[in-house]
């Protein structure tokens, strides 16, 4: 199916992007500010809070990861305005984070708890600011936005054999459709690439991109090896082999097939946001849910497609996470987790192309305001930022 003329109802932002939600983002810069940020957000309707356990006591490289992740989270089009909540003495530079977010043209406020006389002072000032920001962005009305302004993130987790055989390839078809219609998509999970990097390299549009992809895979393998483990030798595991997976290539392909078949237009560091051009982008990230969902949100994704066989629960504070399963038992058993049933592929012979069409069609409904199951119950709180070095 051709989606070129498809539109969704989105919120236009000053930088030209479009949100599928219209939240005030309340972003904590450091662990010590989390509770204040959560308490402020609790008092303001339409606020979405992002907290994490980083921001201080980290080596320089990891502080930079936190800064660029927070800055780009603030840029996410689903946020109409942002309130940055800082303690004041943390390693992360809160002014730089707020300044980076302000480059988007959206309203940004910064409150430092230590400068406001502590918790109640900060709550007073931040609460009033948050109230004002929410009222300001409530004036925005959703308008028709072409699908080329949509950026999907893709991820798989709590996988079973149905993931590699149905939901992942069907998600890949949806990604292909979106890119053909002018949109963009982001995938990651560097760990999943090990063993199939030679295949992804062939899909990189330029040699420079291929070199970057190989270097992020090598860097991850080196870090793993320094910890005394080997991700290549033990794969596929005995359990994988019993489940029918023969080689590491096959295992990795079953995961990366969710990125579809488009050329890869760029490889980015954790926390970076690829340019807003049509195409497929890779972000260096772990596979664990809180960290990669944050990376995909920082990469600008307005919606994340999450393929799962066994059934994973989590959403994200301000990005709808659509759970897609090809396992009918999971679909029926975990009714409050799974948004989309693609078990017709394995049980009724639905083609992957047709399932891909359904996934992209459903994504545009979510883009226009349909709440995911995780959004509806507020199962959106497990958030984190990746770190590469020790906590000091």
């Amino acid at each position: 199916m051709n989606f070129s003329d498809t539109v969704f109802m989105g919120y236009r932002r000053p930088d030209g992007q479009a949100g599928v939600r219209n939240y005030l983002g309340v972003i904590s810069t450091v662990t010590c500010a989390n509770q204040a940020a959560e308490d402020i957000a609790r008092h303001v309707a339409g606020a979405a809070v992002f907290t994490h356990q980083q921001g201080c006591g980290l080596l320089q490289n990891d502080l930079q990861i936190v800064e660029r992740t927070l800055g780009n989270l603030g840029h996410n089009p689903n946020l109409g305005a942002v309130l940055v909540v800082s303690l004041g003495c943390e390693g992360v530079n809160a002014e730089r984070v707020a300044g980076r977010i302000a480059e988007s043209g959206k309203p940004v406020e910064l409150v430092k708890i230590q400068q406001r006389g502590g918790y109640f002072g900060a709550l007073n000032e931040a609460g009033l600011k948050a109230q004002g920001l929410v009222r300001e962005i409530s004036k925005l009305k959703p308008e028709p936005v072409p699908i080329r302004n949509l950026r999907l993130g893709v991820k798989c987790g709590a996988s079973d054999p149905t993931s590699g055989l149905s939901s992942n390839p069907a998600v890949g078809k949806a990604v292909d459709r979106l890119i053909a219609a002018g949109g963009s998509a982001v995938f990651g999970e560097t760990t999943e690439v090990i063993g199939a990097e030679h295949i992804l390299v062939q899909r990189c549009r330029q040699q420079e991109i291929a070199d970057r992809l190989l270097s992020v895979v090598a860097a991850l393998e080196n870090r793993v090896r320094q910890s005394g483990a080997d991700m290549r030798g033990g794969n596929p595991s005995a359990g994988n082999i019993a489940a029918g997976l023969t080689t590491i290539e096959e295992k990795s392909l079953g995961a990366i097939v969710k990125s579809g078949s488009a050329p890869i237009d760029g490889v980015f560091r954790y926390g970076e946001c690829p340019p807003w051009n049509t195409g497929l982008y890779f972000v260096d990230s772990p596979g664990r849910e809180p960290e990669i969902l944050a990376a995909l949100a920082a990469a600008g994704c307005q919606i994340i497609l999450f393929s799962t066989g066994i059934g994973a629960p989590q959403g994200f504070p301000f990005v709808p996470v659509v759970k897609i399963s090809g396992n009918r038992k999971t679909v029926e058993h975990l009714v409050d987790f799974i948004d989309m049933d693609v078990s017709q592929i394995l049980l009724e012979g639905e083609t992957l192309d047709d399932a891909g069409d359904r996934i992209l069609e459903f994504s545009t409904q979510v883009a226009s305001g349909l709440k995911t199951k995780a959004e509806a119950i507020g199962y959106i709180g497990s958030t984190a930022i990746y770190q590469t070095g020790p906590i000091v």
Partner: protein
Amino acid sequence: MENKPEQKFILLHARDNTVTALVDLASGDSIPLGGGTKPERIIVRQDIPYAHKFARSHIAKGDDVLKYGEIIGVAVADIRPGEHVHVHNVESKRAKGEPA
């Protein structure tokens, strides 16, 4: 409305020389493989558990083994259509898969 037959396997890419079983298949089962006007059948030559692969066509020793339209390994023995395709007759080109 026509009742849809139970899906016994999935072909993930037109180029593949393997298909994946969606139910436990028994040796001797005859599976319609083609579809279309002239459905070809394949006789399963061994028990194939759910989610395991069997050969869709003859795979000679040294041939690439394909799934998702990509090379998942190399055949280390001749594999006849309907034969189980797994660690006993396929090796990774990237790293040996060692049971943990």
